[in-house]
């Protein structure tokens, strides 16, 4: 599988992961949104999946067992921080909120902490299996290159 195809699959997995979290949140009465826009949130998940896959693809393709697993664990651990950070930056830019210090702190501090809490505490039963499954698929496809 080419690197481009792998990144395309990563984007698809990111979008699917977003749909799973959003749906799970609605069903369980948990607010999972990072921004005021559904589309911005979806874009942040998708872009995060692509960026992290680009970062760890070579480790998955050519690394040994420990390196591959480590890269997978770091991928899962970094995902909420990077996704929320990207979402926060997008929200601040789209809504023109860079001039307000409280808004900047909300986007860059509360956002990542909220998504981490959502993934681990509030919606762990959905987010963790989805995260592990997603990384497993990406690792498997990368190895097939």
């Amino acid at each position, binding site marked *: 599988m080419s690197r481009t195809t792998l990144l395309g699959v990563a984007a698809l997995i990111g979008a699917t992961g977003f749909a799973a979290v959003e749906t799970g949140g609605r069903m369980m009465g948990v*607010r999972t949104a990072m*921004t*005021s826009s559904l589309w911005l949130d979806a874009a942040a998940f998708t872009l995060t999946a692509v960026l992290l896959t680009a970062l760890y693809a070579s480790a998955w393709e050519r690394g040994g067992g420990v390196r591959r697993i480590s890269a997978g664990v770091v991928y899962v651990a970094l995902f909420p921080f990077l996704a929320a950070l990207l979402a926060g930056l997008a929200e601040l830019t789209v809504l023109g909120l860079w001039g*307000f*210090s*409280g808004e900047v702190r*909300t986007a860059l501090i509360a956002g990542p902490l*909220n998504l981490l809490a959502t993934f681990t505490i509030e919606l762990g039963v959905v987010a963790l299996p989805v995260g592990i499954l997603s990384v497993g698929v990406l690792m498997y496809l990368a190895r097939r290159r």
Partner: protein
Amino acid sequence: MPNPFRVPNVRTLTLSLCLLLGVSSQGFAQTEITFWHSMDSALETVDALVARFNASQDEVRVDARFVGAYAEGQTRLLGAFGSPDEPVLFQAEIGFFPRLVAEGATQDLRDLERQLPAELVEDFVPGLWAYGDIDGGRHGLPWGSSTPVMYWNVDALRRAGLEPPTTWEEFEATVDALTSRQSQGVVFVGDSWLFEMMVLSLGGRLVDDDGVPTLDTPEALQALTLLDELEARGSLAFFGASESTPAILGFVRTRSLMAFASIANWPDIRRFSVAFDVTAGPVPMAPGGVIPLGGAQLVVMKNASDEEREAAFTFWRWLMEPEQVTEWVEGSYYIPVRRAAVPLLENFYAEDPGRAAALEQYDMAIPRPRIPEFDAIRGILDQMMERVLRGRTSPGDALADAQAQALAEVNR
């Protein structure tokens, strides 16, 4: 010429020893009193005040002990009743205070109260001073009093172009307008004090002047219906009475944008709200509305001796000096119980307008119902809110049921 190095005889030695013991026993005439309190968040201030009091005189020594939050302190007190461990002075949460008095566990301090100068008594906030006057006696002494206030995320209201609500109608509209994919407009802890706050601010009462519960009034129905409708629309995040920590976490995580809590929570809310600007203001109010006081009263326990009783009163009297009241307010964020302390707190309040929120409600604060059964009625109210906001019981049915339970409690 007498020899200065002469060895003293036995009589001289005995006399000297007696004199020495006499002087020493003067030092041990000090009365020691134990003081149990629940001021976790203001522990340093309590310790500093007690240390300063102990250093200021020789007659009384106060041994202050933090005995856990109010509920834990009450349990420990009940366990220590009649034993040598029972404290002399106890900080009784105001819902628990009438029960203690009814059980005869506290002393009437009326004789000591009569010795207070009239100008001191007149200087107390009337609602706070009246609190301790119960069953025809002076059983409680004011200290550590608070009022509920409204907290809000300043950035969220500014972004939505909203002003802080001053009426419950405005509050409902504001909460709905703030609710989005990201956040709910308000978080509400189902604690009886906050429900009482709503009812009183709408002009109602939970217990009438004759001590009869009135939980099913139109004001109570209006308050509970408002909470129920906001919750049903997803604008309100409800947490049970014992879930205040996750409720506060929801607020500091910006998942909820408004909240009600004691003004004494202001330092913690400020400390943890690092991700946004936060402030506090008065509770929304209907014409004629008031708010319930919170906090505690100091009581002298039944087993205290006359000396200990007077020593405890002396300590409280010292705490009531404007300088000490000021230090206490600055350390605890409670409201000043004496008006004479307010000018001394001018800078403290000017530094941060959020701190002054409780002061704006100073004159409309009234005591909570002072009937012994109110301690149990609080539990009935907590359960009632759970049934409505987490269950399927209608506000009207829940209030009728709560009223029946409260009446049964009073008539038991």
